[in-house]
């Protein structure tokens, strides 16, 4: 029997094309997305048909969790330092350079003034933990939240107020926040919602 010679073919797979695709996708994702910001609490926003997008900069985020605890966040890191200085003046607290720097990295927080120094001192990984989600006092006796908003407006007059409240937040808690803002003559808000399809035929 004659020997059948099988031609030995190379099994080398050219990965260049696949690499191209992978990096193309990577480029696309990098350019179109923005990083998820760590927030003091996770809230489930209600959905709405509104298609207005939130502005890119100068946002003051107010988060209200299901129990009505209020959290505060401002987007500009340099202005956060200024805000901290003003808050320090108002409540007779002094912050050193390290504390200011640490505070400028906090996206949102919810602790009373008395605990602010301790909150800044804890490492950034555990700042988002549940025991630090106390909420800023927002009642008529001790309305620190009102002070935060007032001073934030002083620091940055262009701020847009965005309120992100949980679906299950009871209405009185939300009304309390709105009343506080109205007392400060802040009458325009953006309520953060998820997109929902507009019902057909209307």
């Amino acid at each position, binding site marked *: 029997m004659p020997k059948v010679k099988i031609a030995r073919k190379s099994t080398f797979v050219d990965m260049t094309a696949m690499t191209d695709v*992978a990096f193309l*996708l990577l480029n696309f994702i990098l350019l179109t997305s923005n990083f998820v910001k760590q927030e003091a609490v996770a809230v489930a926003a209600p959905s709405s048909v509104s298609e207005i997008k939130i502005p890119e900069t100068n946002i003051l985020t107010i988060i209200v969790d299901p129990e009505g605890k209020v959290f505060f966040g401002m987007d500009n890191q340099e202005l956060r330092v200024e805000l901290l200085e003003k808050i320090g003046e108002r409540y007779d607290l002094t912050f050193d350079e390290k504390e200011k720097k640490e505070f400028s990295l906090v996206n949102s927080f919810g602790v009373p003034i008395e605990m602010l120094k301790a909150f800044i001192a804890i490492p950034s990984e555990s700042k988002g933990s549940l025991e630090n989600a106390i909420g800023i006092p927002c009642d008529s006796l001790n309305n620190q939240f009102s002070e935060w908003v007032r001073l934030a407006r002083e620091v940055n007059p262009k701020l847009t107020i965005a309120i992100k409240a949980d679906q299950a937040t009871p209405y009185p808690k939300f009304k309390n926040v709105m009343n506080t803002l109205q007392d400060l003559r802040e009458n325009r808000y953006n309520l953060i919602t998820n997109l929902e399809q507009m019902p057909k035929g209307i």
Partner: protein
Amino acid sequence: MSEINTDKGSGGKGKPKKLSTRVDFTPMCDLGFLLITFFMLSTSMSKPQTMELALPAKDDVTEENASKVKESLAVTILLGKEDKVYYYFGMATEEKRPEIKVTDFSAVGIRDILLQRNQQVVAEMRALKDKLAKRTISDEDFRKQATEIKANKLAPVVIIKSTDDATYKNLVDILDEMQICSIAKFAIVDITDYDKELIVSVENPGAEKI
């Protein structure tokens, strides 16, 4: 890596093997996908949606301009507990008890009632949206005309009152219905004791008013 080794060994004889100039891209490809996975998980593609809400300044609301709503146009919506919605038309006064009804947030609930009350505006808005879809008018004209249509003198004025048992979701839902039903004139007002009484009366029809 992307090649199965089929070399049986040259046995030390013959010419030295020519070295291939091909570069193996497999590790680079791995790296690429690893980075994609990382960025996919740590970033968000879409910006959050918002709903704009403007409230009147507190000191603007005075006795004179507080109740200038035409009675025939007024619709009062009360947000109750467990996603219930109560509504009545016209003004609530002690002498004339309005007929209060219960509904919900479904498509045939409060939306149907509001659409019916706002028929004229809704029809005009629908025609305008058709025009926009067919590109016969520009976006700017659309916005201008939409504002004009919504400012219709006969459009209902909705007064939203929320009980303490309602949630934030209910409020957003009802504001959403305003947008769906093209109602531009609405106000969020504090609930009165009389409204609470009305809810109680509709919940327990047998109970007499004390």
